[in-house]
C-alpha cells in the first residue's frame, strides 16, 4: 500500500500523481477513461491510491516478459503497479465493454 499522493490507474496500472491525472490524464487510457480535467470523480473512481509492486518500464517494453505478464507491454514507458487495489465501477466496465475493451482487474481477483 502506498501512502503517497500517487495513484495507479485501475485499467492500465500506471502510477502518476493525482495532479498528473487531472492535468494530462492517463497516457494509456485517456481515450477511454477521460481523466484530464474531469472533475466529477473520474480519477477517484478509476484510479487507486492503494497499490503494490513498483515496475519501471522503458520504451523497449515489447521484449519484456514482465510487461507481457502484467499486460502492459503495449503501454507507454512509465512506472506501473503490479497490484492495484480496487475495481472500476460497473458503469465504467460496461462502457469499456461497449468499446470492446476487456477490463482485467489488477487487484488479484482476475482468474484464468
Amino acid at each position, binding site marked *: 500500500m502506498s501512502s503517497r499522493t500517487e495513484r495507479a490507474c485501475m485499467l492500465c496500472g500506471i502510477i502518476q500523481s493525482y495532479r498528473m491525472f487531472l492535468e494530462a490524464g492517463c497516457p494509456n487510457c485517456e481515450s477511454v477513461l477521460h481523466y484530464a480535467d474531469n472533475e466529477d470523480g473520474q480519477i477517484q473512481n478509476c484510479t487507486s491510491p*492503494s497499490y503494490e509492486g*513498483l515496475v*519501471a518500464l522503458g520504451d523497449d517494453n515489447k521484449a519484456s516478459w514482465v510487461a*507481457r505478464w502484467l499486460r502492459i507491454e503495449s503501454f507507454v514507458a*512509465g512506472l506501473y503497479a*503490479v497490484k492495484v*487495489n480496487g475495481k472500476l465501477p460497473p458503469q465504467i466496465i460496461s462502457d469499456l465493454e461497449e*468499446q470492446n475493451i476487456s477490463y482485467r482487474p489488477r487487484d*488479484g481477483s482476475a482468474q484464468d
Partner: protein
Amino acid sequence: MSDTGIHSANESGDSTPLNVKREREDEGSPQPSKSHKPNDVSDEDESADKELAAATAAKVESLDSAAPAGADEGQQEEENENENENENDENEDDEDDDDDEEDDDDDNVGSSKKSKRRRANQFLDIEAEVDDEEEDELDEDDEEAELLREQFISDDPNEREANIPGHDDDRLHRQYDQRRQEAEDQDAEQLAETLKQRYRKTHTVYRGDTAASGLVSQKLLMPSINDPAIFAIRCTPGREKELVRKLYEKKRTLARLGRPLEVLSVFQRDAFKGYIYIEAKKPEAIQQALTGMVNVYANQRIIVPVSEYPDLLKQVKSTDVEIVPGIYVRITRGKYKNDLAIVDNLSENGLEVRCKLVPRLDYGKNDETTYDGKVIKLKIRPMPNLFNEQEARTYDQEGLQTGRGLRSYIYRGDEYQDGFLFKDFKLQYIQTKDIHPRLDELDLFQSGSRTGDGMDLANVAATLKNSKTQDGGQSSAFQPGDNVEIRRGEQAKTVGKVVGVSLNEVTIVVVDAGDKQMINREITVTSGDLRKVFALGDHVKVIEGKHTDRTGLVIRLDGDSVVLLSDQTREDIRVFANYLIKATDSSTSADMVNSMYEIKDLVQLNASTFGVIVKAETGFYGILTSDGRVVDVKPTGISRKLKLSSREQVATDKHGLTIKVGDSVKEKGGDKKKEGTILHIYKNILFIESRELTENLGIFATNALNVSTVSTKDLIMSRNLGPDLSRMNPNLKLAPIAAQATKMRVGGRDKLINKDVVINSGNHKGLMGKVIETDDVDARIELHTKAKKIKVNKTKLSVLIRGESIPYLRFIGASETGGRGAHLSLGPAFSSGGRSVLGGATPAVGGGAASAWQGKTPSTSAGATSSWGSSGGSSAWGSSGATSTWGATGGNSTWGASNNSGAGSSWDASRQGGNLAWGRTGGDSSAWGKSGRASVWGDGKNSAWGRNNEGNNSAWGSNNKQGGNSSWGAQKDNSSGWGDNNTGNRNVWRGNGGGSSWGQQ
C-alpha cells in the same frame, strides 16, 4: 461572389414555400426588418434578393452583432457564411472551434483590444458570433447598424444588376480579403492541429487489451527460457522503491541521450524486502545500470529461475486477507488507531471500508474553553464506549441529529447505530493481518448487540480461521474419538467420529449423513470446517478462551456454541463448541483467583489439625486432614498456610531412610499398596500424591513409618531400572565391586554418609571432604577446602576413621564381613591377589577358605563358576568339566601367567593358609585326579595330570612319581614356579603333604 448569388437565387426559387415561410417569420420580426420592408415591396420581383436581405437582417439582429464599418464587405462575408452554413454544418462547428482557439491565441499574443476589434469588424459575422465582449457595445452601435443595413441593402441590388467598374474594385478587395481570410483560417487550423498535438496527444487509441486480443490466458504468458533473465539484486531494505524510480529516470535520461540502458524493466515487491529485480537480456546491462547507484549491491545478485518468475509478480499473496464484511480489522491511523473494527461493508471500488467501531467519545465534556472562547480539545483519547444518546444530548446538543431509523444518530458528522460508530476508512488505513482480537475488545462489541446472545461466533470463527492460516497455528484440539459435525460444504450436517488428526486435516468416520452410502466411510475434512458435537448432559472442559479450564455440564446446544453450567460458579457460560473437550474430572481451580489458598496447599486448621486443600469451591475448601478425612472448611476456618522449607520437611521411612518432598514412596499397609510422590511432610505425616487414585486429587495421608522408599529425588539421576548389564560384561576385567556394594544400601543408610573422606584419584585427588549424599555408584562430597560439592565415584575414596585412611572397598568390606577376623585379612588379600593372578577370578571374595574358593569361582566362573561356587570341593572339579573352566580361562596362560609373574606370592599365600585349603579340597583327591584330565592339566602337561589320571588316585602322588618335574616342568620347564615347586617340591609336596596329604589322597 456571383456564384453565390446565383446559387442563392436558384435555391430560393426552387424552394418557394420555405421562402414564404421565412418571409412570414420576418413579418413578425422586430423593427429592423420592418425598416426595410418598403424596399422589399418595391422590388417584388427579386424575391430572392429580398429574401436574402431579410434573412441577413434577421441574422444580424438575432446575433446582436455590431454593424460593420464596411457594409458591403460585411454583407459579402455574410453570404459566404450563410452558404457555408447551408452546405456543411459540421464544418462550421469546426471553424467555430478554430476561431475560438484563434481568439485565444490572439489574446495570448497580446494584441491590443483596439486592433483586435478592428479586425473583428472586417470579419463581421465570425467575430460577432463568438465575441461576447461586444455585447456591451450593442446599444451604442445599434442605430449605426441599422443605418448601415439600410445602406447595404439598397446597395445590394445595384451590385447584382450591373457590373460597374467601381464595383469591380470592391470585388477585388473582397477577393483579397477572402484570400486573407482563407489563409488565416488555414493558419488557425494548423494552429489548432499543433495545439491538439501538444495537449491532446493522450487521445491516442487505447492500446491495451481489447475483447479480441485480451483473452490471452495468463497461462499462455508463462515465461520460457527465451525470455529475458530476471536478476534479484540485493539492496538496502526500504530503498527498493526509490531505486526503481531512480533506475527508471536513469533509463529515460540515457534513452534521450541516445545510449539507452539495455534493461527491460526494473521492479520491486513489498513482499521481497531488500531486493530489486531487473529484467535484462545480458548481465552486463545490470552492471551498467547500477554503476553510480547507492544502496544497491550490484555484486550480490541472483538469477531468478524461470519457473519462479510468475511468483515474483503474483498479484495476490497467500498472506493477503480478503476484506469481506464481518472480518475483524484494525485501524492504523487517527483517533481509532489500533482499535478493533468489524468490516461492515465495502465501497463499490473496494477502496473504502465501512467499519463498525466502538466509539471513543467524551461529548466535549472534558474540553476546556479559553477565555477568548477557543475550545481546547482534550488530547487524551477517550475510552471506548458505546454511543450514549443521553450524554450527547446533555453535553453537546448541537452536534446531535437523529439519523435514519431507530437508535440511529448522527453526531458530529459520524453515524452511530445501536451505539456503534459506522465510519468509512480508506483501505490503506486498515490493517487486515495479525489482528489478534482480544477478548475485552470483543466483549465491547458484544455488549452492544441487542440480541444479547453473546458474540457473533461466526465472526470469531472466520477470524480464527484466518489467524490459523496465517500463523499456521494449531487447530483447536480435535482428538480421536470426538464427535464432530461438518459445518459447511457439500457434506454439511454429516456427523462423524474423529479417527485421526493431522496438521490441518481431520479424518473422520461418518456416523450419520444424509446419504446413507457415506456411513462408515472415512473422509478427511479441514479442521476449520468441523464443529464438535456434544450431547446435553455431557461433562466438558473448556480448553481455550476466556473460560479456559472451567468445567461443566452441557445444558443447551446452540449451533456452534454450547451453553454449559459451570461446576465452579454455577453459572451458565456460552462457549464455542470447538473450545470444549469432554472431561471426566471436575476442575478444581475454581474462581479462587483472589484467594489466599490454592489447591494442594498445606494448611493449618487448628493447633492439632492440618491438611491439604484438595477441593476449592466457591465459599469453602475441601481439606484432607492428617487422619485421612476430608472436611469442608470456610476460608475463615483456615488459620494459616503452612510454608515449610525443604529442610523442615524431612522424615524417615520404616527402614530409617531419609525421605523428602518429591521422593516416591510406597505405602505397605492395609489391603493394598499405594504408591506416590510425597507432596508434603509435616509432623511425621506424609501427604502423598498418587497417580492411581482418583479421589481427593489422588492425595492421601499416611504416617511416615508406613512407607518405604521407592526412589528418592536425589537418586533419580543414577536410578537404573533393573540390573546394569554393562557391568556384568564378563569381558571386562575390572571388577565392579561397587555393583556388589549397592546391595548394601538396601536395609540401611549408606555408611559413607557424613564420613570424612579423602579422594584417591581424579581431578580432586588428595582433597578431603565430607560425604553428604550417595547413590549406587557415586558419592557427593562437600570439600573442606573449597566450598564446593563434587560427585566422585565411591571407589576412588578413602574413608578417614580416627585419622586413618581406609580405602572404600575395605571400609565396606570390613563393615560387611564383620567379626570374622581371621578371614578379614585373608579375604581381601586373597581377592586382590587372586584378581591379579587369575584375572577374572577375583570378585567373589566370598569368605573363608572354602568360600574363598567359592568366591573365586564366580570369576573363573564366567565359565565354571557354578561348579566351583555351588558344588564346591571335589564334585565341582569333577563334575563341572574342568575342561571348560580351565580351558576357558586358558589354563596355561592363567597358570602360566601366575607362574611367570607372581606365582610365588599367590601360591605362597595359598600355601601358607592354604595347606588346609588344599588339604581340604584335596580330600577330594579323586576330584583332582578325575578332573585334571587331558585338557586342563593335559594342556599343562599331559604327562602330569594325564598321568595322574592314568595313575589314577594318587594324582599328586603320581605327579611325584612320574616326576612332577615332567608335568609341571612340561608346563614351564622345570625351572618355573611349579618347576621350582616340583624340583624342590618333591620335597615340598612330598615333604609337606606329599606323603601325607596328597599321598593319602
